[in-house]
């Protein structure tokens, strides 16, 4: 099977994956955003100043909201993995089809690179959504989570950068070779 045929097959697989996973992701993200908005703008303001069994009500409501959204996010993690992998494989084959060849290492590099970027974006968005609710528990908690997120993001982005740098190196070498040939 030639690379372009394989690229077409991978493209169809990616489209199938997107068709399967995107509705579930949209539903869960929509529900999560709705819960977040109701909690932030309606239920936390109402509950300020009240306690339930000596626990401040805003904290209790934030805890319920965090638990609900955590369940929703866990429910779509597998779908997000599948989509990112499908897109990475498609990108690898698309570029490979132009070049005329594609190696397994290249595909795995694309997967590592894409996964890293997408994970960092998702975690950063989740942190932005939940920062206020973590502040409700304790201001230090939000700072601590931010510190962990920053360290983790740096490590993941370094890994992604390394994965992409291998691909960039290959292209740079190819380009240099072409330039050398032109000069001769």
């Amino acid at each position, binding site marked *: 099977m030639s690379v372009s045929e394989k690229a077409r097959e991978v493209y169809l697989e990616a489209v199938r994956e997107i068709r399967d996973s995107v*509705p579930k992701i949209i539903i869960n993200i929509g529900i999560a955003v709705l819960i977040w908005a109701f909690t932030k703008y*309606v239920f936390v303001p109402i509950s300020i100043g009240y306690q339930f069994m000596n626990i401040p009500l805003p904290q209790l409501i934030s805890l*319920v909201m965090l638990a609900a959204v955590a369940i929703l996010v866990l429910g779509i993690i597998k779908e997000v993995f599948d989509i990112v992998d499908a897109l990475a494989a498609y990108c690898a084959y698309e570029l490979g089809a132009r070049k005329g060849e594609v190696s397994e290492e290249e595909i795995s590099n694309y997967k590592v690179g894409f996964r890293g970027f997408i994970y960092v974006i998702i975690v950063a968005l989740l942190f932005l959504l939940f920062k206020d609710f973590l502040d409700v528990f304790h201001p230090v908690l939000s700072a601590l989570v931010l510190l962990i997120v920053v360290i983790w993001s740096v490590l993941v982005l370094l890994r992604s950068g390394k994965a992409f740098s291998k691909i960039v190196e290959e292209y740079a070498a190819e380009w240099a070779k072409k330039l050398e040939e032109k000069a001769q």
Partner: protein
Amino acid sequence: MSLKSKIFIYFILSLIPLSIALIMLKYRNLCMKYITALSDYLGIASDYIVPLIVITLFLLTIIFSALLIRTIVNTLLSQQEKKGEK
């Protein structure tokens, strides 16, 4: 039950607790006064009644709005599939 009526019922069921919560937010002091008077009349401590009402409204709102979104998206997807089949 048809999908339209299902969507309508979920919409109403999510709108009722949400609108009660919004009214409580807008007329907070007045609502709390009435709830306290009612709980005193019933002989229940108002410290428990208000948080229970808020938590119940919160849970009802998120459950029914989640069901509403799920039903709407599933309906749209099934309609698209039917169009695709035609």
